[in-house]
């Protein structure tokens, strides 16, 4: 079995295993009927983070950038939805995707292009600065939203995008309550994942992107234009972020300047767990983490919930140290390799870029 098919098997096996695990655990906790319902919801939630983690992994592979400003794309999408709510759903969706994609491209052009050759640390700090700047812009009164940060409450007032009743109302399918939004989430994320896979495998741009992910300089030497490939990567992540923003905001309804932070962290951590180095691995990681978080928050008793995060992040550190390439990289001789990892000396400071 070669590397590619092994990884493919690992990713698809991981998806199936997560689905089965979530169904099993939820059914055990809340009973079979509700279990399936929670499962569907958790999987819809998880697939959102799969798409997000994919966007993060794409940029990480092509230019070694861990883009923290990705959360701000979601936030910007939320604001566009807030302003275009009255245009009807099609106008709103088109406008949101368009604006978020343009913002993503602008981000690259203004902030990331000039520092492209700098160290990963500088790239990371730049992405923080971009994220911080966009977020602060949203906190100011520029948009006339009076979103001013209120230090006495700790957060600003929240705006909302009212959910469409026809989208979120649940209906009964053989004893399981499903909403159109859940189905839409499955379809959209599925289409995006398949579409991106096809793009990466079949088109010239896709081949250029994958070549750049593997070795950016080598790809340049063989005639791949750096500016074009990186702009394309930002454009693709922009479209993905736009789609995620729409599905996520229709689900939660809340709009605030810091709304992108939560999903970003989940996708980020999930991507690392799955393995940011491979697109499939990152998507799987985001999916698993998103699904598990949703399942746990729906079912865990409050007393257990409080320290869950603490242990979750201990696991993250353990994974980083023991299997730095993500869970997808584990093979049959995992234990032996793990032992070698434990005794291994530290990674080079240049990082994974």
């Amino acid at each position, binding site marked *: 079995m070669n590397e590619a098919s092994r990884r493919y098997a690992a990713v698809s096996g991981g998806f199936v295993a997560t689905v089965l695990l979530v169904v099993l655990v939820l059914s055990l906790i809340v009973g079979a009927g509700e279990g399936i319902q929670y499962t569907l919801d958790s999987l819809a939630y998880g697939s959102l983070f799969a798409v997000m983690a994919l966007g993060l992994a794409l940029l990480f592979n092509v230019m070694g950038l861990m883009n923290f400003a990705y959360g701000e794309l979601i936030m910007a999408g939320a604001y566009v939805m807030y302003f275009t709510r009255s245009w009807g759903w099609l106008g709103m969706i088109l406008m949101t995707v368009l604006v978020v994609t343009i913002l993503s491209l602008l981000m690259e052009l203004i902030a990331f292009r000039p520092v492209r050759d700098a160290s990963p640390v500088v790239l990371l700090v730049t992405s923080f600065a971009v994220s911080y700047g966009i977020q*602060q812009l949203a906190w100011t009164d520029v948009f006339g939203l009076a979103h001013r940060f209120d230090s006495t409450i700790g957060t600003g007032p929240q705006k909302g995008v009212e959910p469409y009743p026809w989208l979120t109302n649940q209906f009964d399918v053989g004893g399981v309550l499903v909403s159109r939004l859940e189905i839409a989430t499955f379809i959209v994320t599925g289409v995006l994942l398949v579409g991106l896979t096809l793009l990466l495998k079949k088109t010239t741009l896709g081949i250029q992107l994958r070549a750049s992910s593997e070795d950016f300089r080598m790809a340049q030497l063989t005639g791949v234009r750096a500016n074009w490939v990186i702009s394309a990567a930002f454009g693709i992540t922009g479209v993905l972020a736009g789609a995620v923003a729409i599905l996520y905001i229709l689900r939660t309804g809340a709009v605030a300047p810091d709304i992108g932070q939560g999903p970003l962290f989940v996708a980020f951590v999930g991507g690392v767990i799955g393995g940011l180095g491979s697109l499939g691995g990152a998507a799987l990681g985001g999916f698993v983490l998103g699904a598990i978080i949703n399942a746990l928050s729906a079912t865990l008793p409050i007393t257990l919930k409080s320290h869950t995060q603490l242990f979750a992040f201990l696991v993250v550190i353990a994974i980083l140290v023991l299997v730095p390439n993500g869970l997808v990289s584990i093979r049959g001789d995992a234990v032996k390799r793990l032992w070698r990892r434990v005794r291994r000396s530290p990674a080079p400071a240049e990082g994974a870029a």
Partner: protein
Amino acid sequence: MTALRRVEPAARVVWPPLALCALLVVTWALVDGFGDVVYKDTAVRLFLTLIIVLGLQIFSGNSGVLSFGHIAFMAIGAYMSALLTIPPDIKKFTYLSMPSWLGSWILPAKLSPLEATLAGAGVATLFALITAAPIVRLAGVEAGIGTLALLIIVYVFDVQTSAITRGTSTQIGVPQTTTFVSVLVWALIFIGVAFAFKQSRRGLRLRASRENVRAAKSVGVRVSVERAVAWVLSGFVVGVAGALYGHYFVTFGPDDFFFNQGFNIVLLTIVMLVVGGMTSVTGAVVGCYFVTVIYEAFRRWEVNGLGDVRPPSGTGNFVLAVVLILTLVLRPNGITGGRELAWPGDWSLDSLRRLKARSGGGDSVAAESAK
């Protein structure tokens, strides 16, 4: 003249930290002499953040490994020091549910400010010692995530373990013992410590590993050990900053040590270090002053206005972000280029030009890692 020649090598070595200390003392003297309450408050916060940035410099600057986790040490230092100094009469009522194995010695404790600061920093150091083993094995983006996980773990602990930390409630009865002079003295000490560590054999080995891990290992540098030493030392430094912070702001909660909407201490301290030039102590000081001045200038402008012009509130933070991006674009290795302050005898337009021409050479990790 010959006597001057003879002391010059030694003077060259101690020149950068002395000059930086002089800058701090001048700042202190000016603000203490002429500044009002607001300026004093700003200056105290400047020195507090400077201590944190120096701690970050000791670890990240010398090892090239980014850390979001140092604010966790700050939280530990602040909480521990506060717990040991709040008058026992108050503690009896605010910490009703503290477990007895802790309460038996924490509740009656009443330490002096210095003892408590050292105790708080000591616990932070202990935490650094425990966490060193996994952290030193990480680098690059993985290190960023690992240390971020550390920060989140401490934050979640602070919020959720209300028996020991009062959860999201703020502290009550912490004595305000941090003065302008005390932060100045600690900052001066840590400039010396950071510089001494950088110049020490351990510091040199760590810097070598930053430039090229494999080459450093091939000449016998035990990278994990060197990183661990820097990690623990910086844990102590930031722990002290936390204790001082606690005794300055008096009422603090877990959100003070996390991604905070007002003054985001986690990100801004890292930004200060990178903007100044993370590989030099001078860079840490310059970055800290640079960011603080911009931040404060705009904040003051928003509050007081300048003539009739008053920017919409929140502009300051946005402008700060723009300035940061501009700085990183124009000088990817920071304002100082990652170098220490040059010896006055070497100052010339010519050397400045050379510095510009090969910005990225010298003591910079970026030139190496970009390859």
